[in-house]
């Protein structure tokens, strides 16, 4: 194919492109925190003895796990103001959309992680006379933390990758800046390659950080 690459553009405007990283980070990280906490609450709702809480939790997960993030984002940013008068900035809309989608995914990660703990652990603790709350606190959560971590890290990476969707509502993150520069300099392939490098770097450093967290585990299951 007949294409003369000119990566010089990345030297000239690479810092402008990478400057979008700030927006990627201030959208991804609050969303990750909200999704992690809300996902935990949703997973707890799934286990609740109250039927109404269980139904509420599973409906939330079913809706927001299946709704494409793009649709959710556009809806929050453009339809919500018309219906409610609540007009959010592009950054706020993005955090809200990624948190809602992310928390549904996180809930499933927690549920999978809890299922990985053998039922005999609960039985042994119950047999010793521990209360249900103590079993959760001392037996399930400490083990669940580590059994959930790999799946939860995947959810976090999905959230970071979904930040690129926010170009649609013009959040000036890396992908949007790549588009913006493409319009001016007609170098889409070089610029999108640059955007890819920035995202790969962000996700790799996040993964390395999460690995460190996994290293905290001093025990192995028997």
């Amino acid at each position: 194919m007949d294409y003369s690459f000119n990566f010089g553009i990345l030297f000239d405007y690479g810092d402008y492109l990478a400057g979008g990283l700030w927006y990627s980070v201030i959208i991804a990280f609050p969303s990750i925190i909200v999704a992690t906490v809300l996902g935990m609450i949703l997973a707890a709702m799934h286990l609740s003895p109250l039927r109404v809480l269980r139904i509420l939790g599973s409906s939330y997960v079913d809706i927001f796990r299946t709704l494409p993030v793009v649709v959710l984002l556009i809806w929050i940013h453009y339809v919500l103001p018309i219906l409610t008068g609540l007009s959010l900035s592009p950054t706020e809309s993005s955090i809200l959309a990624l948190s809602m989608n992310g928390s549904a995914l996180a809930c499933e990660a927690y549920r999978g992680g809890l299922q990985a703990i053998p039922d005999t652990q609960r039985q042994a603790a119950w047999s010793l006379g521990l209360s249900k709350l103590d079993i959760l606190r001392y037996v399930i959560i400490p083990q669940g933390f580590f059994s959930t971590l790999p799946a939860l890290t995947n959810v976090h990476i999905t959230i970071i990758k979904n930040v690129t969707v926010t170009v649609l509502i013009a959040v000036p993150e890396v992908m949007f800046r790549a588009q913006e520069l493409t319009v001016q300099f007609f170098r889409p392939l070089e610029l999108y390659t640059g955007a890819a490098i920035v995202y790969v770097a962000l996700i790799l450093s996040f993964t390395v950080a999460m690995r460190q967290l996994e290293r905290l585990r001093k025990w192995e299951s028997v």
Partner: protein
Amino acid sequence: MAEPFLSLQGLSKAFGDTQILKDVSFTIDKGETMVICGPSGCGKSTLLRCLNGLEPVSSGALRLGEEQIDLSSPKTRENARTGTGLVFQNFNLFPHMSVMENLTLAPRRVLKLRAAEARKEAERLLELIGLSDRSAAYPFELSGGQRQRVAIARALAMKPQLLMFDEPTSALDPEKKEEVLGLIRELKRTEEVTMIVVTHEIGFGKNVADWAMLLEDGSIVEHGAASDFFTSPTSPRTQRFLKAIINA
């Protein structure tokens, strides 16, 4: 004549249409040991779990010393958890806790012991099971026999009136079996615990147990003094069963 220390009256349990335990009753005196054997699926594990209050039952009353527990009521059933201790076939230690933490968690949270008291008792038990030097180890760092000994100590730390063992040696190789059986023999001598042991170790039953029972299809086939049960069983079914084990 004094009332027996432990008595179980009319324990029955059904799962759907299947009757798993049929009107099981027996008594044991304080410090005595009873061995239960029977073919797999006869209901022996379920019996222990019911006595431990882990499973709902259709009827059954357990008297443990002064305490009277109605096993058929979901509320009072849970009281059996603290009066009795159960050592599982696969140990079920908490893998994320050190040996010391495994031994002190329940005494602190359930018996409300102070940390120092719980530690002190745990250290005593570790000495008893011969693992004083492994208190900081995690379960994955221990051998199978060591894990089972820790599981026994964990149950003992709760000072149960009745200690039950669900095939405690079936997951171990022959050498380690002796390690665990020796410990149970030792407990009978020094701790004076009342015990029920589900096992097929005939030598152990002959030498250590006071009583023995054969369970089949949820019913008691034969129940008597261990010496008679293992040397001259009355029921032909028991004779066949013991013969099969010896030849195995």
